[in-house]
C-alpha cells in the first residue's frame, strides 16, 4: 500500500508543481534548467523509494505510475475540461505577423526565443517572415512562416 500511495502522491505533486511553475520552464530549457530537472528527478527518486530498494517496490511503483498515466489519459478523453486543466491550452504569441505583448510577457517568452525557434524550425531570418507563433500545450513553440 505504501508504494502505491507514494507513487500516487509524487505523481500528483509533480503534476501540480510543474503546471503551476509555468510552461516556460519546459519550453525554453537552458543548461541550468536541465540540471534542475536532473535534481528534481534525483530528489523524486528518493521520495518514491524511501528506504525500500527491493525489486518488488520498484516494480509496484513503475506499475502505479503507468496506471495513473493511463487512467488520466482516459479521463482527459472523457472530460475535455480535465484535459484543459492537466495539459493546458495553446497560446498564440504572434498572430498574422503581429506579436501579442501580453501573451509573450505572461508566458515569459521573449521575441528572441521566438526568433530562435523560427531559425531552428523554418530557417527564417526575420520577425516579419513569421505569420504565427504558438506556445503549444505541450510546451514547445511552433512557428508558421508567411506564405
Amino acid at each position: 500500500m505504501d508504494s502505491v500511495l507514494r507513487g500516487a502522491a509524487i505523481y500528483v505533486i509533480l503534476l501540480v508543481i510543474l503546471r503551476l511553475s509555468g510552461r516556460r520552464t519546459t519550453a525554453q530549457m537552458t543548461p541550468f534548467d536541465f540540471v534542475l530537472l536532473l535534481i528534481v528527478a534525483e530528489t523524486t527518486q528518493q521520495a518514491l523509494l524511501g528506504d525500500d530498494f527491493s525489486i518488488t517496490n520498484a516494480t509496484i511503483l513503475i506499475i502505479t505510475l503507468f496506471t495513473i498515466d493511463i487512467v488520466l489519459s482516459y479521463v482527459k478523453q472523457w472530460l475535455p475540461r480535465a484535459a484543459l486543466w492537466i495539459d493546458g491550452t495553446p497560446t498564440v504569441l504572434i498572430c498574422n505577423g503581429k506579436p501579442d505583448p501580453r501573451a509573450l510577457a505572461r508566458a515569459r517568452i521573449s521575441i528572441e526565443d521566438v526568433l530562435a525557434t523560427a531559425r531552428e524550425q523554418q530557417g527564417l531570418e526575420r520577425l516579419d517572415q513569421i505569420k504565427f507563433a504558438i506556445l503549444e500545450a505541450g510546451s514547445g513553440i511552433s512557428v508558421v512562416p508567411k506564405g
Partner: protein
Amino acid sequence: MQQFDEPATRPDGLQLDENRSYQETLWTVERWAWLVFIAITFAAALGATGAGGPFSHRLAVLEGGQVDHPRIARWEASEEMAVHFAAGSGPRTLMLSPAFAQSFQIEDVQPEPDRVEATPDGQVMHFDTAGGPVQVIIHLRPQSPSLATYRVNLNGGAAQSLSTLILP
C-alpha cells in the same frame, strides 16, 4: 468510422482551439502559486517543515531539567532529542511513555543508559552519573506520519505531555 471533433478555424485562418480566458486565469493562478512557493521556501528555511531551523524544535522545561524535542519532524528522517538534567546528585532517570515508542524508533542514546526498565508508564532509562548538569542525546527516526503525543518525565517528577508533528 470514428468521428473526430475538429477544432474550429479562427478568423485569422488558424485551426486552433485556444482557450484564452482559461489561460489568463491560469497565468494569474500561477503567479499566486509562485508566492506560495516563496512562502514555503522561507517557512522551510525557518524550520516549519522540520529538519532543522528555529521552528523545528521546542525546549520544554520539566521538573528536573529541560527536554529539547522536535516540534516538527519528517517521516523516516533522523531526528535528535536532547535531555538536559539539572545540576544535582544521584542517579538520573528519563521516562518515555509507550506512545513515544509507537511513533519513534530510538537509534541510539548518548551516553548509553546503565539500565532500561519497562514499566506500565513506559520505558525508564537510568543514568548513573556524578553530580552536575548532564546532557543526554537521543537519536530518533519517526515511524509514521502523524501527530505524535507522548509523556516524558525526568527523575520521577511530574510527567509532561510533548508533541511532534511528523510530516509525510
